């Protein structure tokens, strides 16, 4: 009895801490798309007693708004609130200049479960574009709402939605030499923050495993760098590289079996290696006496891109895994190109590019080698692609503080994610979650 009371108190404390953390990231859209698609996300009907456990429509509208491609209609302007297709009076919504409308309902679905049914219509033609039934436990209702946004987004843009994904990042509080470093994972909308690891020594370079179940990162907890792999669900943690010198820049191979990483060994020569996680076998991938680091895999797993200062300043090189001796230079525009990340389609790199004295995020088209600067900061770094390739998240500075920001791949949509305290940095966008096929059902006739 006492034990269970104790446990309840501990739970309450943790939840309090979590609530505090949860309020931290505030998203502000700094630049939207002018031709955003007007859409009405009507508040969902609640088919039970009391109040609904979640406002699905609010979450869907916020997701679509944040994408910058949609302009959801303000609720105050809705003169009626249909919850089924047959209740929609299309002429009213045409008058409100919404091109599309989403209507739906939320209902209990057994103990501790809820289901939602929703439909998407073209307001101009009255055509029903899609309809689905989704079900989730009480603890995953936000995830269910993000899934609704994913479906609507994909139906209208042809691009898979990334609202059900997560971001990992590092937060730092305090002033030197007393600083606290945290590795945090949050939903893509900044909600549901969870501290994965916390240390008084630096934590850096988080990298998602391709299955989204684990994160590799660098920790200095033993007063020297080491790479750890931590499973998110269980918290289980494994030290995978703690060799003399640098252990840095982990990057998972697409099959999840290997890590590319940076080692300096005893002689201090900083080079890229591949570590087989099962056999612990190391294969050297770069051979220059300069600094070679920041490896990134091509999506087919055959090539590594990495940064090297062998030609003077940092530039990006590529190497075939089978022929590590033959590195080829990839970037030529500008005196500084570093921290490559490969787009999901393998066609471009996101890099940190020195643009007239400012570090900014740029893309490099791998076919044409054309560089396109996407951001306007002074100290922008650590770009990471959303798994649908449509958006990049990166770290920037805002009034002397580290904040996260996103930019659409065409540079048109930008937003800032500001933490309420401390610095946040090194964002890493998760892969897509596994297809939630089992619990999603398409409803009605097309």
């Amino acid at each position: 009895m006492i034990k269970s009371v104790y446990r309840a108190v501990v739970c309450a404390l943790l939840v309090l801490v979590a609530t505090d953390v949860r309020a931290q990231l505030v998203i502000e859209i700094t630049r939207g798309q002018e031709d955003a698609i007007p859409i009405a996300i009507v508040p969902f009907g609640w088919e039970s007693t009391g109040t609904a456990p979640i406002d699905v429509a609010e979450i869907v509208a916020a997701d679509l708004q944040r994408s910058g491609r949609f302009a959801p209609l303000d609720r105050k302007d809705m003169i009626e609130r249909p919850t089924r297709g047959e209740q929609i009076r299309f002429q009213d919504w045409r008058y409100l200049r919404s091109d599309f409308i989403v209507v739906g309902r939320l209902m209990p679905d057994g103990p501790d479960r809820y289901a939602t049914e929703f439909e998407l219509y073209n307001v101009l033609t009255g055509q029903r574009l899609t309809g689905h039934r989704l079900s989730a436990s009480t603890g995953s209702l936000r995830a269910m709402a993000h899934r609704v946004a994913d479906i609507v987004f994909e139906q209208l843009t042809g691009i898979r939605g990334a609202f059900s994904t997560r971001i990992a990042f590092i937060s730092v509080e305090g002033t030197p030499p007393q600083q606290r470093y945290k590795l945090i994972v949050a939903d893509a909308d900044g909600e549901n923050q969870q501290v994965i690891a916390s240390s008084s020594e630096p934590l850096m370079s988080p990298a998602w495993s391709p299955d989204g179940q684990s994160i590799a990162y660098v920790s200095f907890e033993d007063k020297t760098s080491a790479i750890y792999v931590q499973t998110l669900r269980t918290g289980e943690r494994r030290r995978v590289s703690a060799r003399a010198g640098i252990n840095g820049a982990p990057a998972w191979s697409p099959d999840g079996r290997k890590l590319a990483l940076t080692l300096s060994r005893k002689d201090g020569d900083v080079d890229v290696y591949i570590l087989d996680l099962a056999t612990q076998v190391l294969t050297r991938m770069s051979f220059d006496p300069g600094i070679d680091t920041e490896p990134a895999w091509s999506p087919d797993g055959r090539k590594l891109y990495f940064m090297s200062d062998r030609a003077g300043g940092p530039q990006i090189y590529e190497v075939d895994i089978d022929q590590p001796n033959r590195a080829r230079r990839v970037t030529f525009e500008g005196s500084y190109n570093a921290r490559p990340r490969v787009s999901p389609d393998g066609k471009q790199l996101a890099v940190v590019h020195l643009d007239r004295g400012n570090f900014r995020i740029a893309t490099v088209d791998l076919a044409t080698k054309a560089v396109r600067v996407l951001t306007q900061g002074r100290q922008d770094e650590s770009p990471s692609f959303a798994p649908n390739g449509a958006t990049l998240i990166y770290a920037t500075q805002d009034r002397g503080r580290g904040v996260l920001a996103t930019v659409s791949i065409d540079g048109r949509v930008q937003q800032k994610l500001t933490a309420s305290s401390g610095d946040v940095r090194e964002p890493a966008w998760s892969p897509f979650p596994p297809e939630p096929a089992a619990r999603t059902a398409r409803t009605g006739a097309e």
Partner: protein
Amino acid sequence: MRITQLLLIVVSGLALAGCPKKPTTIAEGQTQEGPTGAETGTSLDSGDVSGSALSAEEAALEEARRVGTIIYFDYDRAEIKPEYVPIIAAHAKYLNGNPNRRVRLEGHTDERGSREYNIGLGERRAQAVRRALMLQGVTEAQITTVSYGEERPAVLGSDESAYAKNRRVEFVYSR
């Protein structure tokens, strides 16, 4: 929605049902061991404590520390500038006279440029100091290096004066 995903969301959401998993709190390192005011060149008098006469070894270390414990670098460079040669010489003298003592060289950079490149640059700086010590007779076994890149700045700030203080290698002796 698959069970694994649901579990993930439940765990990550610190859901109402069940006690959530605690985050990994990594045991506190001895942060006090890091750079302090006593190591920034002009040493504080630790001799104030009455009756604590310094041993010959401690006095020799104090002597080296008085010359300096931090070497500063130019932007994106790892060459040791002439004004820091006396610091290297002082610590080489101490380490040569005390072959069982070890020094830890901590390389740092300013915040400009990418983080992992800066880890490489901090290592390059620490290695430059290591080589200079070894040229003066210090053995390999007496030296360890670590690069913190830009992760542990001496001071916060995004101006040249802050940058200059952060581009450094610190000599750290542990007991």
